[in-house]
């Protein structure tokens, strides 16, 4: 493939990592959701680009899913949940921005080190992509760990999963990518519905998982 294609793909992947950092930086849920929408958008772009350069039309489906479902539907619904639960004001991080950022840097460095050990073989694109995808995954996981409430965790999970899709699409000619992205969308839908469930059944006055933890068979 030509140099320019590679650079653009690379650019988009790097952008994704950058946006993950932005998510990590946010401490208001609204802002977080907006940044996540941006994340999904970038992913869609990246996937579309991959579809174009690998001329694999089925990837356009994945791109579309990313665009519609993750960049629009989910953020909107989560937005509504936040409003319902009235938790849009709370600062709900466990560790401050500074440490989180440092940890993120460390993770990115780690994923680079791990991935660049891979023999610079067949095509560099895959390798670089993987490095970025891995960092996105790790950053998403880091976000899940550092966010206290369910919405934050969902967002973290979704950006993690974006990383997966990035990797999957980066893997040239990988079958079942579409199915996988669909499956994941379903998974996320489940999670969101789950949050809805807890809200609607009015068992839990907040979706803070610590509250969920209070009902524990063994205590007392």
């Amino acid at each position, binding site marked *: 493939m030509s140099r320019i294609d590679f650079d653009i793909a690379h650019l988009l992947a790097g952008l994704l990592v950058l946006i993950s950092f932005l998510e990590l930086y946010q401490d208001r849920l609204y802002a977080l959701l907006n940044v996540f929408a941006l994340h999904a958008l970038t992913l869609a772009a990246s996937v579309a680009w991959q579809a174009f350069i690998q001329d694999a039309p089925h990837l356009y489906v994945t791109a579309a899913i990313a665009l519609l479902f993750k960049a629009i539907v989910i953020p909107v619904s989560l937005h509504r949940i936040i409003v319902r639960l009235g938790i849009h004001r709370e600062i709900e991080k466990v560790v401050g921005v500074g440490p989180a950022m440092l940890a993120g840097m460390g*993770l990115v460095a780690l994923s680079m080190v791990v991935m660049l050990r891979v023999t610079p073989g067949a095509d560099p694109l895959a390798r670089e992509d993987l490095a970025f995808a891995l960092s996105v995954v790790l950053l998403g996981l880091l976000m*899940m*760990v550092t966010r206290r409430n369910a919405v934050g965790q969902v967002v973290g999970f979704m950006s993690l999963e974006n990383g997966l899709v990035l990797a999957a699409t980066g893997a040239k000619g990988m079958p079942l990518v579409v199915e996988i992205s669909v499956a994941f969308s379903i998974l996320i839908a489940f999670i969101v519905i789950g949050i809805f469930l807890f809200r609607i059944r009015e068992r839990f006055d907040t979706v803070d*998982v610590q509250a969920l*933890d209070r009902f524990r068979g063994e205590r007392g």
Partner: protein
Amino acid sequence: MWSTVPAFSSRRSRSARRSCIFSLPALAVTLPVGLPWLGTHLRLDALSAFFLVVVDLGALSASLFALGYGEHEEAPERVLPFYPAFLAAMTLVVLADDAFTFLVSWEFMSLTSWALVMSHHRLLDNLRAGFVYLVMASFGTLTLLLGFGLLAGPDGLYTFAQMRAAHPGATLAALALVLALIGAGSKAGLVPLHAWLPLAHPAAPSHVSALMSGVMTKVAVYGFVRIVFDLAGAPAWWWSIVVLGFAGMTTVMGVLYALMQHDLKRLLAYHTVENIGIIFIGLGLALAFKAHGMMFAAALAFCAALLHVFNHSLFKSLLFFGAGAVLTATGERDMEHLGGLIHRMPQTAFVFLVGCAAISALPPLNGFVSEWLTFQAILLSPQLPSWGLKLMVPAVGALLALSAALAAACFVKAYGVTFLGRPRSPAALGATETDRFSLAAMILLALLCLFVGILPGLFIDALAPVSAAVIGERMPAQIGGQWFSIVPIAASRSSYDGLLVFLFMLASGGLAAFAIHRLASDRLRRAPAWDCGYPDASPATQYTAMSFAQPIRRVFGSVVFRAREHAEMPPPGDTSPARLTVALSDPIWDWLYAPLAVGIGFAADRLNRLQFLTIRQFLAFVFSALVALLLVLAIWS
């Protein structure tokens, strides 16, 4: 499938000359069950034949006793299914010829006996006893498992024949010795691994207690002998130091513990610990002599140990049967509530007395013979070259003598408080003689005790093939010397003739009785006890078990058990009784087991917090695990 393989080569043809059950060629059989591709190897050689006799003799008498004893069992459905399984397991251990079969039967033995211990499960003490017992037993099994894993090597040569052929190196063998000592020792009740024994043995029904104390501990001894003398190859001289050290401690600690007891069955259980110590002293000496190539002496020590194995299985079963008879007659195990039973159960009292005399090593009974042989072995040890042993052995001898004397004291207490004196409770007052099956079992054993005591030569000769097989040397033939005296080395050196001493005592005692009754008065008048002119004192004024042990407690207990006596005197004029409270602390439990339990509890508490984290924190675990592994990857290259 049956095939006979030659027994261990015995360098003496004399062992073949006089044939006895133990000098038959070894039988071996392999069954296609158990561990696949290995099968179940069973083998009956001299050593296992001897222990088989011990096991089955015990089983016979116990079953006979149970015929009568079982009448009083309130939960037979919890005893009957496991009892035969228990016997089968013990037999299998002795017959096993590969590591898997051995350990399966070994642990199955523990399991079935655990079930029997739990048969009266409603008592909290029994629950605790069962728990401690099973955990300690599994500890022993796992230790032995490690030992066998060591001997079998990485490619799993599990049959004993292969292990013998493998000739383990010095360090390997030493490790195997340590593991065997811990594994078999924990089952046999070596101090400090004895903790379960005085809990579990009394908890079981009495005939099972007899089996556990009299027979199962011997099976453990068999395990030790099989591994250390047979599989682990040539011993190093310091092995015996280790063994003798534990044995000596076991002997004295066991009897001291026993002296502090007033629960009859627990007292007996502690004496099992003591006698195991004596047996291990013999084995330790045998190791020492064998390591220095003094095969005669080794054979002597080994025979002493085996003979004591046999003797102890006899009189300990007898004593537990007696305790069981007392238990069924009075419902009491606590000696402080007994007394005067000699009037109400005379036959039981008589056979129990025989047992007490035997275990106290009084001539002309069997206990004395084996201890005498052990002493003879000790007296041979100055010829040992190594200094460690030169210093160790006499100390052990002193400990042995001390424990013998203390044992006699302890059984004066046990018998005197339980059977003599005046009844201390209505239960003791209302006791009646036990049933005939139980009596038959006890009389059988009592006769055997006497028989071994007066004709020890027969048994020593019977043991010769065993020692020839295991040690490679045998004691000189005893039968055919003058009369029936036993001569370990040479007549000029030492000899003992149980029969003659027995006849001698009979004669002189009878003579005296005859002379006095014939020549002097044989008149007799009953009158109140004189007791220095304190008439008709209540039974409460008798010496109790605790008060009887008080002088010894003051001498030894204050050191070993930190025994403290606290007397509350009422103020003058106050008629309320004074009370004396005795505080004892079990050093081994306090310093070894309690800290262990506390440690595990502490760890459990700390780790238990992990049950109560938030999902986020659990995710954090996953996350950190991932990062850690990736770091490993990054660094690993």
